[in-house]
């Protein structure tokens, strides 16, 4: 086990000012185990009293080698790894990976499976924003919001468990469609959620948005202008709060998103400068937009009531068990797919999805064999975090906590 040596000044000489050497400014570790770093992120802070001069993130404390591990598994088995990446948005990761595999091998997805995927991904987006709001409130000492948000999140987790049998790591989407059709109880459960959730969002807004203490702590803190954001590769709500109208669901619609009517909440389109309060408000508006999509998805689902949820292309999608006993080809396909998996062409593709944190892209490269040659997950939190040093300079340590909470990072996303 490696030993922890002392933080040496030489290591960070090119990043911190030389006043740290003379002891004028203090080098403090807001280290891997800290209540407000949303996981195992270590921030080496150079402080002049309470003012942050430099906040140097040191990541890698949760590096799991997922990309290396996926190279050792077949295409279908590798999907299990994607759940553990951004563990707030597990179905979103599955969707990104499945779409990449479908694009690589050229697999079609039936209409009903696309609608189910959209509904489940939007519910997962709401659940992810609920955890964001809970942690955001917790970091600003609004303890009760955390308990309210997790109360709603339990409803969504019940729905996910109803479909896939697992609360978080569902692996419900499979290349070529969905694992199985939604159970009959899915419809009433989602309808109830749609009925009660708008009032709950108003409840959060009543608690937080007009709270003067919170406004003092959020307005004008951590200004991020659009130019810097784009140069640092920031995407998602953080970018939209800085005035750039870029949402992959509208820009490059996938899974039939063009058929749904919803707007993308963007703030200060003209000033192009977003602060922590704007990032918070964009998340709140996204609650309502996602709910609209879920509602339209449920109506659409009712029309496509008894349609297949998996593509019938037997080269890539295992046949249902009922068919195996009957037809010989089905048995051969079943056997081949589950033992060896399907081969993919020798080429590479990049397909991106809008995750609650930004653009979640998958660079997938096949080498003709059943195992992916290279899988790179372009995760949004990795780039969103790199901008923190720039936007927290000159703020107080308490503001650093609020800014870190507002850019909504997940460490599984960053360290992969």
């Amino acid at each position, binding site marked *: 086990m*490696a030993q922890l040596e002392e933080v040496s000044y030489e*290591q960070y000489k*090119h*990043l911190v000012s030389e006043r740290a050497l003379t002891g004028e400014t203090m080098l403090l570790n807001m280290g891997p185990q800290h209540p407000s770093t949303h996981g195992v992120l270590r921030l080496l802070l150079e402080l002049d009293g309470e003012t942050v001069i430099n906040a140097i993130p040191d*990541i*890698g404390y949760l*590096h799991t*080698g997922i*990309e*290396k*591990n996926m190279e*050792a598994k077949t295409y279908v088995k590798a999907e299990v790894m994607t759940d553990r990446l951004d563990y707030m948005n597990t179905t979103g990761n599955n969707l990104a990976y499945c779409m990449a595999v479908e*694009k*690589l091998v*050229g697999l079609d997805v039936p209409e009903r499976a696309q609608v189910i995927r959209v509904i489940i991904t939007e519910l997962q987006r709401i659940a992810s924003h609920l955890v964001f709001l809970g942690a955001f409130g917790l970091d600003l000492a609004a303890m009760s919001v955390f308990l309210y948000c997790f109360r709603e999140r339990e409803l969504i987790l019940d729905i996910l468990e109803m479909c896939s049998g697992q609360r978080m790591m569902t692996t419900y989407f499979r290349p070529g469609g969905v694992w199985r059709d939604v159970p009959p109880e899915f419809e009433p459960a989602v309808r109830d959620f749609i009925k009660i959730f708008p009032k709950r969002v108003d409840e959060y807004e009543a608690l937080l948005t007009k709270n003067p203490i919170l406004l003092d702590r959020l307005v004008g803190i951590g200004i991020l202008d659009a130019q*810097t954001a*784009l*140069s*640092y*590769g920031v*995407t998602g709500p953080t970018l939209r709060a800085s005035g*750039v109208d*870029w949402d992959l669901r509208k*820009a*490059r619609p996938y899974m039939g998103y063009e058929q749904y009517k919803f707007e993308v909440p963007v703030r200060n389109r003209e000033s192009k400068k977003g602060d922590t309060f704007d990032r918070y408000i964009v998340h709140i508006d996204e609650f309502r937009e996602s709910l609209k999509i879920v509602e339209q998805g449920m109506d659409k689902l009712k029309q496509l009531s008894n349609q297949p949820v998996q593509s019938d292309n037997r080269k890539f999608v295992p046949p249902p068990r009922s068919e195996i006993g009957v037809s010989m080809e089905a048995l051969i396909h079943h056997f081949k797919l589950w033992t060896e998996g399907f081969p993919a062409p020798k*080429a*590479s*593709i*990049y397909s*991106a999805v809008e995750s609650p944190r930004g*653009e979640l*892209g998958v*660079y997938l*490269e096949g080498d003709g064999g059943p195992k992916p*040659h*290279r899988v*790179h997950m*372009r995760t949004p939190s*990795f*780039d969103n975090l*790199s901008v923190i040093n720039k936007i927290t300079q000159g703020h107080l340590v308490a503001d650093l906590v609020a800014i870190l909470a507002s850019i909504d990072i997940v460490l599984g996303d960053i*360290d*992969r």
Partner: protein
Amino acid sequence: MDKRLEKVVQELQEKFGSSIEEFRDEVHVFVEAEQIVEALTLLRDKYEFELLSALTASDYYPQQSPRFHVIYQLSSLAKNITLQLRVPVEGVQPKVPTATRVYDVANWRERELLDMFGIEFEGHPDPRRILTPDGMEGHPLRKDFPLGYEEPQFTFNYDDIDLKKIYAKE
């Protein structure tokens, strides 16, 4: 290929003599390592590719001559088109000029490539490992780096693994 993309690709071909690859509505443009910074600045300023959405690499291990491909996935928000630049790099001393002056996102991404593949980026402001522990030798995502498999403990091999496993007493 998207017609707006054609104009961009033509200019890249004339200026850098790069070859093209097309697969499923995507265009991969091969660029030499020395011209990459120039190509990126051209694409960013002239053709409004504001977002370098992904910067990664791929290792073609047994093939030594261009062993790595450094991949720049660019996307333009204004025109809503994407383009991929690929830079073939030698296997012995992989060196690529840094793109941090063009896109700031390249700073961390290049540190990750240094850490994972051992590709050095000349002129990088902060060339440190980013993900793996400090004392680690070797670059994990290279094909010749072992996955590091440890035999799991089941009932049939419980005892002999139990002897080997180092339990922390206190």
